[in-house]
C-alpha cells in the first residue's frame, strides 16, 4: 500500500493516459472525470478501485494481475522491451495468467520462471524474487509483490528486471574466487616446495605443507616470527636475510642457494626465491619459495667424485700402458740394432731389416695411439721450454733430406723468426715431421717445400706460420672434410699403398690447438698438390737476457771440458805405475814422453809380449798396462791371455793400428779392457786413462 501511495503521490499530477478498468467491458466514466484529452485526474475510479494508469509509465517492466490472476495493467516499458511479443496493451489486458506469458513474452522460459515466482508469492503472501538465467546468457530478476488490503489479496505486481550485466560481473567474481581458492589449496598442499608469505618486515604471514616439511615448524609455531631464524648465525651476523629482502625489492626478485636451518638445528641446502608482492603501489609483503636441494647437491658431489676417480684411473692406465708397451718395444729395437752390428749373412740381414722396419712402424703406431689417448682424455700437456724454431726446422730438414730421391726438398725460413720463444720443441717437431712425411709420401715428382714465417706478433706472443707445400697427388674432394678426423685415411682399401694409423693428422690438429693455433690445408695454387699449414702461438721471452745467459753457460762448459781432463789425469797419475809393452823404440819413446807429460812418473817398459807377461807377474801390481798388439815373439793378445790366466786384474789397454769396429770387440773378448788407435792421439789417451784409472780408489 505504501508503494502505491508514493506512486500516487508523485505521479498523480502527471497522468495523461485515459482511464481504464480491468474488466472486459469498457468502464463507464463518472461525471466528475474530464475525458477531453483522456487524462485521469484522480487515482481512483468511479467504483472506488485504484487507478492503475500510472503503472504504464514505470521504467521497470511491470505486469499487474488482480487476485484472479487476470492482467489489469502492463507497463509501456515492458511492451517496448525486446522480450515483449506485443506492442499494444489491448492484446494483454484482460488475459489470464496462463495465456498472458505465452502471448506476451518471446521467451517462454522466462514465463515459466515468472509463473513460479508468482506461485511462491501466492503461497507465502510475501514478496518473492528469483533470478532467471536464460540460455542466451541474459539474466533476469523476477520480483512478485503481493498487494493486499484488510486480509484479502488485491493485486500481484510482477516486475521483470534485466540483470544481465550484474549477472556477468557476479560470474566473473565467482570465477576469480574459485581460482584464488584453487591456488590457495595448491600452495597449502604442495609438499616439495616451501611456499609462504612474509609481511613487509620479513615476518612470516603464511605457511604451507612444504615449509613445514622442510623446516620442521608447524604453522602455529612460526607465524609472526622473522624469517631470519632459518639462517645460520654467520648469515644473520652478515644481515643476509635483510640484504635478500632489499635485493628483491630492488631487482624484482632475489635468488640464492645456501644452507638453511630446521627447527631441530639440522641444515639443508636450499634454493630460495624471494619476490615482492604489491597491490597497486602498496607493498603487501614477500613471497618466498624454497626448494630443498640437499639431495641434488649430494648427488652432484658424488658425480664429481666418480668422474674424478674415473679420470684418475684413466690417466694411471694410460701412464702404465705407455710404460708397459714402450719398454719391451725399445728393448726389442735396441737388441735389433745390436744384432745388425754383428756379422750376418745376406739372408739374415734382410730378415733383420724387415724386423727393423716393422718394429719402427709398430713403435710409431703405439706412440700415435698413446698420444691420441692422452689428447682425447685431456691428459696432454705442452711444455714451455725456450726453443729456436729456425734450428728445429733445419734439423728436421737435414734428417729428411735424403729420404726420397726424385723429388726436390726445399726450405724457406723467414729471417725474422725469433731466436728464442717459449714453446714445446718436441711437439712442434712432431707436427712438422708428420706433415712433411705425408707430403713426401704422396708426392712422386716435383717438390716438397717447407716454409716457416713469422705471421704476426703482439706484445706477448709470436704467431708462427708453418707451411708444407707439395706437388703431389692432392686431396680428393670426398675426404677433404674429414682429413683431421681420427682414423680417417685416404686409402682404406685392402691394398693400402700408404701406410699409417690414420691418427697422425688428428694428433697434429690437437697439438696445434694446444699451442694456441689452427691447422688446415688448401689446394696448391700452382696447380698440382696441396698446402698443409698450421699456426702456433709462442710466448715472447726476454731475448737478450736469455741469449747472454746461454752464451755464458756454453763458454763455461767449454772451458771446463778442455781443462778438466788434463787436470784430472795429472791428479790421477800421481803414484801410479804403468807398464808399457811396445816393440818399436821410437813409439816407445813417444809414449813415454806422452805419459810423463800427463803426470806419470813410474813407467816400466817391455819389448815384446813375453817380457810384458814376465814383468807383469814379477813386479808389484800395476795400475795400468798399455799393450801393443803386434809384437814379435808374443803378440799383445797372447800376452793378455797369459796375464789374465795369472789372475792379474790390472786394466789392459790395447794399442792397435787395427781400429776397426769388429776388432775392438774382439780385443775386449780376449781380456782387454779398452783400446786406443795408433798413432796414439793424446786426447783420446787421456780419456781412456781416466776411465780405467779410478782416481778415488787408492792403488792396489
Amino acid at each position: 500500500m505504501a508503494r502505491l501511495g508514493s506512486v500516487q503521490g508523485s505521479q498523480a499530477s502527471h497522468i495523461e493516459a485515459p482511464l481504464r478498468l480491468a474488466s472486459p467491458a469498457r468502464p463507464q466514466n463518472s461525471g466528475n472525470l474530464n475525458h477531453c484529452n483522456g487524462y485521469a485526474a484522480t487515482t481512483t475510479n468511479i467504483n472506488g478501485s485504484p487507478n492503475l494508469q500510472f503503472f504504464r509509465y514505470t521504467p521497470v517492466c511491470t505486469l499487474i494481475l488482480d487476485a484472479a490472476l487476470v492482467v489489469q495493467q502492463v507497463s509501456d516499458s515492458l511492451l517496448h522491451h525486446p522480450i515483449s511479443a506485443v506492442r499494444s496493451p489491448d492484446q494483454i489486458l484482460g488475459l489470464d495468467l496462463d495465456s498472458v506469458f505465452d502471448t506476451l513474452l518471446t521467451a517462454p522460459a522466462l514465463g515459466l520462471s515468472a509463473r513460479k515466482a508468482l506461485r511462491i508469492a501466492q503461497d507465502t503472501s510475501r514478496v518473492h524474487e528469483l533470478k532467471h538465467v536464460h540460455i542466451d546468457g541474459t539474466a533476469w530478476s523476477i520480483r512478485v509483490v503481493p498487494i493486499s488490503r484488510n486480509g484479502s489479496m488485491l493485486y500481484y505486481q510482477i516486475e521483470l528486471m534485466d540483470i544481465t550485466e550484474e549477472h556477468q560481473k557476479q560470474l566473473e567474481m565467482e570465477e576469480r574466487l574459485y581460482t584464488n581458492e584453487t591456488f590457495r589449496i595448491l600452495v597449502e598442499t604442495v609438499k616439495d616446495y616451501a611456499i609462504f608469505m612474509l609481511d613487509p618486515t620479513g615476518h612470516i604471514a603464511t605457511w604451507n605443507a612444504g615449509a613445514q616439511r622442510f623446516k620442521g615448524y608447524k604453522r602455529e609455531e612460526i607465524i609472526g616470527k622473522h624469517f631470519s631464524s632459518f639462517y645460520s648465525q654467520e648469515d644473520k651476523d652478515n644481515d643476509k636475510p635483510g640484504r635478500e629482502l632489499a635485493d628483491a625489492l630492488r631487482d624484482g626478485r632475489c635468488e640464492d642457494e645456501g644452507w638453511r636451518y630446521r627447527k631441530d638445528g639440522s641444515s639443508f641446502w636450499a634454493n630460495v626465491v624471494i619476490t615482492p608482492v604489491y597491490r597497486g603501489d602498496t607493498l603487501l609483503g614477500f613471497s618466498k619459495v624454497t626448494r630443498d636441494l640437499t639431495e641434488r647437491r649430494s648427488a652432484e658431489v658424488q658425480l664429481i667424485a666418480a668422474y674424478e676417480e674415473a679420470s684418475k684411473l684413466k690417466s694411471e692406465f694410460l701412464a702404465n700402458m705407455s710404460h708397459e708397451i714402450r719398454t719391451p718395444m725399445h728393448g726389442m729395437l735396441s737388441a735389433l740394432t745390436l744384432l745388425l752390428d754383428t756379422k750376418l749373412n745376406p739372408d739374415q740381414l734382410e730378415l733383420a731389416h724387415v724386423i727393423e722396419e716393422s718394429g719402427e712402424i709398430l713403435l710409431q703406431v703405439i706412440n700415435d695411439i698413446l698420444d691420441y689417448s692422452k689428447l682425447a682424455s685431456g691428459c696432454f700437456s705442452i711444455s714451455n721450454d725456450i726453443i729456436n724454431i729456425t734450428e728445429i726446422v733445419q734439423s728436421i730438414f737435414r734428417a729428411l733430406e735424403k729420404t726420397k730421391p726424385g723429388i726436390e726438398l726445399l726450405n724457406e725460413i723467414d729471417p725474422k723468426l725469433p731466436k728464442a720463444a717459449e714453446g714445446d720443441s718436441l711437439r712442434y717437431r712432431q707436427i712438422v715431421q708428420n706433415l712433411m712425411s705425408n707430403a713426401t709420401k704422396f708426392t712422386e715428382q716435383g717438390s716438397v717445400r717447407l716454409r716457416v714465417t713469422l705471421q704476426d706478433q703482439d706484445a706477448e706472443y709470436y704467431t708462427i706460420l708453418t707451411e708444407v707445400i707439395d706437388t703431389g697427388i692432392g686431396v680428393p674432394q670426398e675426404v677433404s672434410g674429414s682429413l683431421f678426423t681420427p682414423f680417417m685415411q685416404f686409402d682404406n682399401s685392402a691394398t693400402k699403398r700408404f701406410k699409417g694409423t690414420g691418427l697422425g693428422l688428428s694428433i697434429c690438429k690437437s697439438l696445434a690447438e694446444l699451442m694456441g693455433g689452427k691447422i688446415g690445408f688448401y689446394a696448391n695454387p700452382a696447380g698440382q698438390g696441396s698446402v698443409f699449414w698450421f699456426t702456433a702461438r709462442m710466448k715472447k721471452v726476454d731475448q737478450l737476457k736469455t741469449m747472454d745467459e746461454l752464451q755464458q753457460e756454453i763458454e763455461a762448459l767449454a772451458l771446463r771440458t778442455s781443462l778438466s781432463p788434463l787436470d784430472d789425469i795429472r791428479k790421477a797419475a800421481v803414484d801410479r805405475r804403468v807398464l808399457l809393452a811396445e816393440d818399436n823404440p821410437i813409439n816407445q819413446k813417444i809414449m813415454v814422453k806422452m805419459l810423463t807429460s800427463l803426470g806419470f812418473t813410474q813407467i816400466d817398459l817391455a819389448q815384446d809380449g813375453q817380457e810384458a807377461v814376465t814383468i807383469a807377474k814379477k813386479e808389484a801390481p800395476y795400475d795400468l798396462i798399455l799393450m801393443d798388439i803386434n809384437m814379435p815373439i808374443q803378440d799383445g793378445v797372447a800376452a793378455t791371455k797369459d796375464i789374465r790366466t795369472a789372475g792379474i786384474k790390472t786394466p789392459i789397454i790395447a794399442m792397435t793400428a787395427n781400429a776397426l769396429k769388429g776388432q775392438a770387440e774382439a780385443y775386449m773378448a780376449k781380456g782387454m779392457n779398452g783400446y786406443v788407435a795408433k798413432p796414439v792421439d793424446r786426447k783420446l789417451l787421456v780419456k781412456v786413462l781416466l776411465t780405467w784409472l779410478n782416481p778415488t780408489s787408492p792403488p792396489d
Partner: protein
Amino acid sequence: SGDDGIMDIPGAKDKIDPTTFEQILEMDDDEEERDFSKSIVYDFFTQAESTFEKMDANLESKDLKTLSELGHFLKGSSATLGLTKVQASCEKIQHYGHKKDESGTKDITEEEGLSKLKTTIEQAKQEFREVEKVLKTFYHDES
C-alpha cells in the same frame, strides 16, 4: 805453435800428416831447440836405414815372413811421426810378405810377393829419402 811451418817446406805436403807431426812437436819443451822431436826424428832416420838393410838381406833370402815383420815394424814408427808415404809402402810390404795383395785381402803367390816386395822396398827407400830431406830442412840441417 802448430806445425811450425814444416808444411811450407817444398815437398812436405804429400809426405807428412801435419796433425800427427804436430803432436810430436807439442812435446818439445823448447820451441827453438826442439830437442825431443829432433831426437825422435833422427832416431827414425837411423831405424829406417837399418830396416832397409835388413829388408834387402831378407829379400835375398826370400824370407817373406821376416820381410812382412820388418814392413810392419817400420810402418809403426813412420805412422807415429805422420810420414804418410813411407807408412803406406811399409804396409804394402807387410801384406806382400804375408802373400796378400797390397790391400791385404786377396791372396798372391810367392813369386808375385817377392816381385812386389822388390819394387815396393825400393819405393819405400825413395820415399824415405825425400821426406828425410824435408825433415832435415826443418831441423836446419844442411847436410
